[in-house]
């Protein structure tokens, strides 16, 4: 072996590459498995009868599969009503935020005006404030106005916290519309309004969807405001309702985990499919530089 001067055993390059590749795959599988294990465990605990979950140590793979828990969950718990309330809150927030963020994003992206960077700064700061700071005064105000226990009154607050992020998301998308297209439309006699309506918005459709997703699931997932501003069990959204399940007697682990799964399916699916836009908006410039 002429090349073994360094003391390391000689390996043909191909074998070395194969070892490297295997190590890479082992590392990736290991990291991914650890990351998604909690989710896997939620699914396992939902679909297997609870005699397996309530044994120690529990089996790592489901021994038996059953789906009766979903029926019982909807029959015995007000989960359908909770989801309906979440849907109402999320929809109101989505409509408000989508409409307002088009205005803000167009002002930030396509127009040059004095105060533009101040406006951007204002949005950035509001985006970074902790929600709790607003909650105490808002609770006192809603108490005076008798607006506690109102889904629209809750939704408008959720919208206020989703709005800055959504404006950033949409601004990034509007920025990508070539300015020549806008100028050409304006020169052709299109009004500013119809330029936006007929050219900018259709070109920015994925961005609009991303904004709608963030606003909708911002309201859907929100827990803090919902837990304080809505007290009645009738109007409780699912994010708050789920937390009451653990305290109820007779709620079985497969129902508890199943409720969590039902609540999470939509946000996970939509966030994942829109992640590129959402992350760009959340990091406001950190991604694109």
């Amino acid at each position, binding site marked *: 072996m002429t090349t073994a001067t360094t003391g390391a055993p000689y390996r043909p390059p191909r074998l070395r590459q194969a070892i490297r590749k295997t190590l890479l795959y082992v*590392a*990736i599988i290991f990291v*991914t498995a650890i*990351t*998604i294990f*909690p989710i896997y*465990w*939620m699914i396992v*605990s939902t679909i297997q009868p609870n005699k397996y979950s*309530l*044994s120690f*140590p*529990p089996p790592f793979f489901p021994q038996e599969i059953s789906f009766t828990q979903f029926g019982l969950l909807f029959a015995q718990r007000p989960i359908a009503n909770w989801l309906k309330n979440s849907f109402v809150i999320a929809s109101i927030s989505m409509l408000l935020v989508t409409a*307002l963020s088009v*205005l803000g994003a167009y*002002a930030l992206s396509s*127009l040059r*005006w004095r*105060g533009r960077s101040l406006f951007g700064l204002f*949005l*950035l*700061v509001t985006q*970074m*404030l*902790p*929600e*709790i*700071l*607003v*909650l*105490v*005064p*808002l609770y*006192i*105000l809603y*108490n005076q106005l008798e607006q506690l226990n109102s889904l629209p009154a809750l939704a408008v607050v959720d919208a*206020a*916290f989703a*709005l*800055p992020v959504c404006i950033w998301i949409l601004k990034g998308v509007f920025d990508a519309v070539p300015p020549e297209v806008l100028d050409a439309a304006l*020169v052709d*006699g299109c009004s*500013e309004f119809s330029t936006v309506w007929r050219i900018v918005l259709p070109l920015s459709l994925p961005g609009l969807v991303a904004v709608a997703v963030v606003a909708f699931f911002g309201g859907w997932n929100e*827990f*803090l405001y919902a837990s304080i501003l809505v007290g009645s069990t009738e109007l409780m959204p699912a994010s708050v309702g*789920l*937390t009451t399940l*653990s305290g109820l007697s007779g709620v079985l682990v497969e129902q*508890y*985990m199943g409720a*969590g799964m039902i*609540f*999470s399916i939509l*946000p996970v699916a939509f*966030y994942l499919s829109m*992640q590129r836009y959402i992350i760009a908006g959340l*990091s*406001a*410039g*950190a991604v694109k530089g």
Partner: protein
Amino acid sequence: MKPSSGKVHRRLHLLPYLLALPIILYEGIFIVSPILQGIYGSFTRIDLGSGKPQIWVGLANYARMFADDLFWQALKNTLTISAMVIIVALVAALATALLFNRPFRFRAGARALMMIPWAFPEVPVVMIFIWILSPQFGVANVVARLIPGVTQNPMWLQDSNLAIGSVVLISAWKAFPFYSLVILAALQSVSQELYDAAKVDGANVFQLFRNITLPGILPTIEVLLVLAVIFSFKGFALIFLLTGGGPNYATETVILRIYNAAFRFYDYSYAAAMGVAGFVISLVIAIGFIIMQARRARELA
């Protein structure tokens, strides 16, 4: 009418203000004005239950805050928990980003799986982990029992140190995919030519990382660091639902302290004073973020 594009913009010079106005009003009503009311409220005594009028008490709430051991403890908890979460999350993010930056089969699918914790709502995340950490049936005990000397299931959320550790790991688990994806984007923008040139010069893996990769992604990591500080300072639902701030205030952050003062002890004016402290802290971090972004924009220009 065919005005030049310059003319169009002059004609429309009011438009941006008209567009921004509803947004400023909206955020003004629901965010700015409550915060101003909170600042005012911190100088008063508010008694909602008895219907007594709000009375001016000057700096009394602040004097109480500075003398309150639990407030200082909450500040300390916020610092230590945030620091640990940020370190764990950013290290995990960097490691996974480097790993996922290599070409391999099913990369898109594996990346999507990695993003799931980030996409999961906080409330079900807490439900999962309370179940996983259940002292009786939790699967975490199976892992803990592998450690020599552990013969009993640990009281994950009932023991102070274990509760802090659990809160940190769960928060980092939820946060790191976001940072990982941002770092991954930065990695992919580092010029491949630099690597090729360095390899020709005989650089090894560590030299490549230290001299090309790290300088290339450092600005992104800087920005992420500040974002991570903001996110972890703001965090509420995860810790609140996991521990409520306990056991014995070990995981009570400033945000939880404000919540508990207001909504467990109905001490609104004291909560408002601590809210002002929280406002000042987040304003300082936000200004830091903005200065950093502005400096970066200048460097790129």
